[in-house]
């Protein structure tokens, strides 16, 4: 699983790099450049999170869906805002007090993850992040290192 995630991370970095390179190549920025940057940036963040959550080359299914769902939500919000026509002038539609496109990005990327990610971390902590056994192993390794240094 980690090998797949590292490949996704490299691909995401590539999407970010291609977006920037396109800005140097063309006098007029291509329309796909910000889409590539948005997908790449969210891809880097989500795959990094997933790589950090992998243990013994596996990850709980709940976390797989959490990361995948949030990637679709966040990257999708950016892409929708990029593709929707602008209606931020007088009388434009508002969603929870903000113009529609801004609300889609700010609430999807800035609010929804706050309610999901910290809870996902806490609920999978003992089973997938750090258990008492892990601590015992690390402390034993530390003791062993000290003993060999003293010897």
């Amino acid at each position: 699983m980690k090998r797949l995630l590292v490949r996704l991370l490299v691909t995401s970095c590539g999407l970010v790099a291609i977006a920037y390179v396109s800005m140097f190549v063309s006098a007029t920025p291509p329309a796909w450049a910000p889409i590539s940057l948005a997908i790449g940036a969210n891809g880097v963040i989500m795959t990094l999170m997933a790589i950090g959550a992998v243990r013994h080359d596996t990850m709980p299914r709940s976390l797989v869906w959490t990361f995948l769902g949030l990637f679709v939500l966040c990257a999708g919000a950016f892409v929708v805002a990029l593709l929707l026509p602008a209606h931020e002038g007088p009388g434009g539609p508002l969603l929870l007090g903000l113009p529609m496109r801004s609300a889609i990005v700010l609430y999807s990327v800035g609010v929804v993850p706050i309610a999901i990610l910290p809870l996902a971390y806490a609920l999978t902590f003992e089973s997938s992040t750090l258990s008492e056994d892990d601590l015992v192993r690390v402390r034993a390794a530390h003791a062993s290192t000290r003993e060999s240094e003293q010897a």
Partner: protein
Amino acid sequence: MTTPMLLQSAIPGLASPAIVAIALVYFVVVAAIATWATRRTKNANDFFVAGAGVGLWTLAIAKMAATLSGFAFIGGPGLVYTIGIGAVFIILPGALSNALGAWVLAKRMRLLGEARGLFTVPDAIGARYGSRLAQGLAAVAVLVAVTGYIATNLLALGLVIDAIFGTGLSTGIWIGTAIILAYSVAGGIMAGIYTDVFQGSVMAIASAIVFAFALKSGGGMEHISRTIMAADAAYLGPWGRIGPMAAISFFFVFGVGSLGQPHVIHKFYMLRDPRQLKWYPLLMTVALAVTQLLYVSVGVAMKALVLGGSMAPLAKADQATPQFLLHYTPTLVAGLVFSGVAAAIMATVNSFMSVGAAALTHDLPIAFGGRVTDELRVGRISTVVLAVVAAAVAQASGTLVAFLGIFGWGLFGSTIVPALAIGLNWEGATRAGAIASIATGLGITLVGETLGYFKVYGLPAGVSISALALVSSLLAFFAVSWLTRDTARGSIDPDIQIVMNA
């Protein structure tokens, strides 16, 4: 692309008796906490990582206080006032970055502290790759960025002290430096982290109160939006006035770069019990979200008030917060917020002094094959040297400060994220890959920012050196690690491997 700066211009005089009294009370409380914490500082471990005995609440609030700096209270709202929603993409990754840090770094950094007794970020890089060169290069990057950051923060603190007490900028800088030095030298991060708890609480309370006043002043969010949309359609558009590439670049740099901020991530070493990390992302995310309410609300509310004719246009964007406080909040709230600004700056400077002093005292000597025998004493001397150099730079040249200040976040991100954040989670990372990524981040940031500052070369609109350096260092890390992949196997010490597998 607009460069976010902490505070660039003088703020209006605030020398009313109530504000002065609140500020004095604030400084007395800071002094009392620092004195208490200083008595507990007995050795280098206490000085640099608070004896690894900090609880979860303390850790979360201290990390929040160190993360934000005065930019969240002055420079940030000014940026929102100027470029609109585009400036929000600097803080937007906060919804993701704390969980990101928890999964990628928190447990492994804390366990590295347990396994090896490490206390700096370059320490962790050195241990991961068994490389003094990688540790030394990371320490150089930390020192360069830290000096600039401390100078910009001391300049901002001087401006705040001058505005409250009417001391003059120069005196304000040195008074601020002396106060922070007093507790940083005596108590190191031990004093810093406990004053951070008080300072972070002041920041959060001040931000929440001002948020309510900002919404009230503009007649609610919908009325604020309608007022702005009638006069300036682009301002509240999803990317503000800076366009999508620049806005999403902010998101990329501040989201991914959060994994490379040494003054924040080294605090993971300080947690008493690693199992407390369970609730770290929740506490940190909520604390950060509350404290950033002011950042967004004041800039947008001031824009609506100006466009609606209730306020005259601001001469300088940095005046958004001070002018709003003076006109739309009670004096007590204004006093609390300005104490919050001072709190934010002081908390950040203390953390920078700690990581900078550790780089000088601990990492660079190790990189050169030596070891300082009395790290506590030399750490204190290094703290004074760093602070005096930074204060002198802050006083001598505002232009130079601005130049140094723009390096920070991007330099940390591009030099530390690949080698540390990915390296601690991927066995395929190699020593050569880590060194290549750190060198790439350092080179592109220093050369690119210098050429840009002296207008030798300009980047296309929407592209920043920080973003280029970050993505280049990531790609260099993967490319060189792949080319040298035969060296990866068996190169990790057994105890480090156990931490990586945990």
